[in-house]
């Protein structure tokens, strides 16, 4: 799922300085799971913003909402009536959610309240780690299910670099070397022969972000 972290409240207060009535909108999907922008975080941030502004005697009214998924038009449009009542919107959904609101409500200022960080997995309560970079052509079948694109600092496709030491990465000492993990996994699966198969260089400019905006069209689903 998408992982995000809340922006520091002092940064948000700067965005909102000119406004006295705002809508704070969270999202009931990914950012709820990573505790960055769900219903609870909306309540906490709204309370923090009100107290901060009360302290400087510049009261702010904060309406609160948490659509089920802010990145889906039918849920984003539930905010229509609330948006009519406010001067600006602070969205603590991911960057996709913010832009969905921008597309549907072009007449109002919309600010991001979180930094969308990565696609990741919950390791334990309060710890999330990157697992996917949406590269556009999955290689997990060749690497025992461990992603060298998101987990190797150098995105190497054919074995570790010389900096792999005692199973750890030279770039981030606390991180496991992705290729050590791949080797261990393939050994467990009795598939070490896969290490000898050459994985061709990725076509970043064709299937990935380097070719510009990506779009998926399913003609069978269009209405």
């Amino acid at each position, binding site marked *: 799922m998408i992982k995000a972290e809340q922006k520091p*409240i*002092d940064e948000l207060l700067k965005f909102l300085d000119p406004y006295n009535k705002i809508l704070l909108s969270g999202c009931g999907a990914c950012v709820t799971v990573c505790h960055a922008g769900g219903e609870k975080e909306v309540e*906490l941030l709204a309370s923090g913003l*009100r*107290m*901060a502004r*009360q*302290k400087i005697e510049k009261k702010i009214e904060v309406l609160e909402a948490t659509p089920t998924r802010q990145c889906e038009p039918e849920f984003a449009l539930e905010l229509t009536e609330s948006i009519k009542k406010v001067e600006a919107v602070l969205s603590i959904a991911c960057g996709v959610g913010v832009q969905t609101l921008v597309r549907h409500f072009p007449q109002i200022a919309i600010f991001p309240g979180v930094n969308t960080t990565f696609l990741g997995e919950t390791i334990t309560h309060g710890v999330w780690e990157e697992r996917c970079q949406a590269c556009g052509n999955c290689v997990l079948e060749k690497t025992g299910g461990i992603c060298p694109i998101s987990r190797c600092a150098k995105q190497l496709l054919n074995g570790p670099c010389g900096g792999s030491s005692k199973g750890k990465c030279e770039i981030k000492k606390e991180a496991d070397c992705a290729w050590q993990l791949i080797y261990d996994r393939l050994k467990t699966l009795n598939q070490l022969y896969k290490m000898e198969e050459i994985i061709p260089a990725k076509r970043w400019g064709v299937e990935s972000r380097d070719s510009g905006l990506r779009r998926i069209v399913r003609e069978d689903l269009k209405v």
Partner: protein
Amino acid sequence: MSAFDPKIVAFCCDQSGYPAADMVGTLKLKLPKNVEIVRVPCAGRIETIYLLKALEKGADGVLVFACHEENCQFLRGNLRAKGRLSYAHRLLEKIGLEKERLEICNLATNNGVKLADTIRQKAEQLKKMGPNPSAEKT
């Protein structure tokens, strides 16, 4: 000039803080004016928003009376409360409010004297700090 009596909200765990508060009554110990005891089944039941709302709606200080660490009937309730306080502390610091307005105190059922002392000390500390500037004006 009228004296400032800080308003304190004291969340009391039913396993420790609340029996201790009860003992304050039994022992006829004096508490400062303006103290509101809120009974909760476990300190872990106190959501972060309760702490912030108390301050936002007019409390000058908030105390959480929880069981001693490793002594929670629900195993980790007091530790959850501690974590939530630390989140609230960081938020208060960011908005320029003294984090001392929010404090946790671990005690046992028979610590009525400790509870009364803690509330008295907090009231004295809050008197020096002055009223909560972020409280909603009514």
